[in-house]
């Protein structure tokens, strides 16, 4: 599903040039659950942003579903992204002015799903995530765990082929964290490909494969049994 080859990304300021990704090559197959680990500054988030088409690489190739997307325009990337990828963030990133229902509905609005269909699909997802009773609440009225459930609901409502999760349990206590990991595992079992950046060995164990990065390069790949 994903194949990156010799990917490079630099960050330049006036004085220094930092290499975030250094000729990185990775392949992820459809239906896989991959964890990316590594110390701060190793390039995990940069990689995730490029995979999510939020950022573009300076060099190298990125083939998504058989299409080379490394140098797509912003508009094309946005289009591809909204139909194929769901995001889950550490800090949830829900919009404070919108209710739970409206937050989850947002991706469907951007993909042009008709109103009646949207209601049906949002309710379905909220039901599945067991957060239906909170549909009219605002994010600030929810606990951290509940907020992350809403964020995951939002990520999956468009039935994306790929979910990118950036430390999804980083802001949660262990019991809420476990619940979130169970949810991701369920989604993966239903066929969604998941790539997750994490610091937590515990969370990484939920994945099929761990890719360890250091200084923008792959150092080790562990296959989980």
């Amino acid at each position, binding site marked *: 599903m994903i194949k990156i080859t010799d990917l490079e990304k630099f960050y330049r300021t006036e004085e220094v040039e930092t290499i975030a990704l250094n000729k990185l090559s990775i392949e992820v197959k459809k239906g896989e659950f991959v964890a990316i680990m590594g110390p701060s500054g190793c390039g995990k988030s940069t990689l995730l942003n490029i995979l999510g088409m939020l950022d573009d690489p300076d060099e190298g190739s990125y083939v998504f579903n058989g299409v080379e997307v490394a140098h797509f325009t912003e*508009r094309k990337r946005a289009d591809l992204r909204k139909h194929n990828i769901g995001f889950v963030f550490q800090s949830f990133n829900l919009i404070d002015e919108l209710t739970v229902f409206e937050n989850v509905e947002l991706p469907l609005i951007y993909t042009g799903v008709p109103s009646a269909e949207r209601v049906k699909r949002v309710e379905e997802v909220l039901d599945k995530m067991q957060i239906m009773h909170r549909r009219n609440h605002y994010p600030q009225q929810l606990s951290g765990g509940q907020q992350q459930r809403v964020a995951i609901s939002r990520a999956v409502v468009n039935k994306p082929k790929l979910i990118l999760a950036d430390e999804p349990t980083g802001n949660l206590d262990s019991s809420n964290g476990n619940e979130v990991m169970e949810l991701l595992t369920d989604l993966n079992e239903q066929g969604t490909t998941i790539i997750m950046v994490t610091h937590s060995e515990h969370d990484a164990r939920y994945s099929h494969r761990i890719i360890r990065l250091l200084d923008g390069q792959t150092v080790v790949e562990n296959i989980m049994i």
Partner: protein
Amino acid sequence: MIKNFIKTALRSLQKNKAYSSLNIFGPAIGIAIASLIFLWVEDEVNYDANNVKKDRLYIVRENQKYDTYVFTHSSTPGPLGPEIKDQLPGIANICRTSEGETSLLFARGDRSFFASGKYAESSIFSLFTLPFVQGNASSAFSQLHSIVITEKTAEKFFGTETNLIGKTIRVDNKQDYVVSGVLKDLPTNSSLQFEWLMPFKIYFDQNSYLKQWGANSLSTYVELKPGINPETVNKQLYSYVQKHEPKAISHLFLFSMNDWRLYDSFKDGKKTGGGRIEYVNLFTIIAWIILFIACINFMNLATARSEKRAREVGVRKVLGAGKGSLITQFIGEAIFMSLIAAVIAVLIVLIALPSFNTMVQKQLVIGFANPYHLLILLALTLFCGAIAGSYPSLYLSSFNPVSVLKGLKLKDSGAAIVRKGLVVLQFTASIVLIISTIIVYQQIQHVKSRQLGINKDNVVGMDVQGTMGENFNPIKQDLLNTGDVENVALADHGIIYGGNNGDGMTWPGKTPGSKVLVSNRAVTPEFMATLGLKILEGRNLTVADTVRSAHTVITQSLEKLMGNGSAIGKVLRYEGDTSTYTVVGVVNDYVYGNMYGKPDPVMFFSLAPKYAQVMYMRLNNQKGVEQALAGIQKVMKKDNPAYPFDYVFLDDQFNQMFQSEMLVSKLSRVFASLAIIISCMGLFGLAAYTAERRTKEIGIRKVLGASVAGVAGLLSKDFLILVIISSAIAFPVAYWKMSLWLKTYQYHIDIQWWVFIAAGLTAIIIALVTISFQAVKAALANPVKSLRSE
């Protein structure tokens, strides 16, 4: 999607109440001011629009060429109208009327009233659009002593009586007139204004001089046939008077009704293209400036608080929102805010309209039913929203989602420069308005306190009514006996009046061919003392001069024109006439007619009281005005019982001459204040966000020992620099603009340097007060709290 945007916008407004009110009230005031100005502009540009023949209607004007200038006026000879109607094929119809308005006394039963109107030919009902409520145009003037009145006059004369046709009213206690028509009231924005119309024949027969080609004392209106080019007719009119008066210096031309109100400014006999249109343009520009100032607040606050929106932008982008959809969202939000502002603006207009009407002396209505009004309001709202939303939408939609979701501090430098530029723009406009306001005020005060050559204070004027002229001596004696009046005089024209002049006067030694405009005034001997004119040489006029009428008192400027040395004993005469006038006295020059110009010379003759038109009384300044007026009223009731006591103060009449300037002065004061208020609202919001943004810095500085004053100064400094830059830009702009304005007045002030310093300081002080509230609040905050929050 739109529903989602509106929801977000509404909730965001609710959540940030202070920010929202700044953002809504600024544009609301802007839209309200613009709406008021545009109502006024609409009234001005639609002047005379009630006339269906407007495009074909003209008034005949005359250019008279003198040595130093061309005098353009609308007084025409009596025989002109009928003759050009017969002779010039392009003319469909003409109408002659008396000039200005004639005030007459009307009595019905025991009630009497003064009312002003015109003598007009019956063609007036065909040229002008004057719908009849009772009676009709064809029979209106079929009888000589008939009168056509407006609905308002009908109410004044007849109260609730109906079916007025055939009813009579006594005019000037002499003659009964039959009401032959009632007209719908004239719109307030009509150049033609009257309370009544009477047949022109009455006026024409009463004044035999009107039949001469040499007397310019009537208004002549012309209706051209459809498709006729007025220039063709102008060529035929140019030397028309000369056919009858070969030596006349008058050249006629047609002046279109389309230009009467807004383009009535002539120089050297030609339209300057200026006139009231300059005020219309000026206020229109001010309306847009104020609106723009209000929009700037929105832009600045929106970009200043962009950090608060950054995460939302990031999330929306991640979820697939394109730049276009975000731009639409943010412009949509601005328009939504603008719509709320428009609703508040309508409320402000409703509340402010009565005061505004008093100020501009109009009866403007908000006119919800008028689709144009709604359209313009909508256009203003959309304009405001689009301008306000333009920059923020581009700025916010350009955020990189990766950075904002990571919570990185945004690089604000580009937006900060734009913000500073916009603040400078706001304050530049405000400071220019402040400077202009001060200079306009100074100029008006300068002219009002000008040495007029007369003493206008404590003088009361009355129209001479009934037998006041014939009984002048006993009335004068009775008035003096009250002790309330110091002196009483009669004259044939009001002292401020600028007409009744001619170029036919000549004297030995006058340059051949030279044309000098000299005004003639007939006055009783008391006139000089009553009005405060000083006899500089020779003697005053006496009653005996009335009989001989060969003696004249002249003003100083005429004496100078007549050559070196004293003019006493020198002789003047009209060209082509053998009668001579010997100068017996010289008085000082005085300002009349044009308050800004240099006065033309005047010749005074002794007036036989029975021909007087105006009576002036100098009040005893030891007595109170109320008491003096009561005393005069008692005398007038006894000596002229048939007429109500009606008077006017000379200084009020004088103030009337400055109506346009006073209007500009008052409005510019209001606009300048509002501009600075709106600018400060923006500054207040910006200061709040700057303080919030620099919370951590303030905390660290305080921990390291900075004082409250030091921190407050630090926060204020940046804004003050902007106001100082604004001043530096505003000064030359204001100087240039106001110098041009002052040049349009012959008698004007010089611009003084302190005006600029005062305006700059005012802006700085107001800005400082605005900012310091936020700055001190931030400086007083507990540093431990602010550091912990970081």
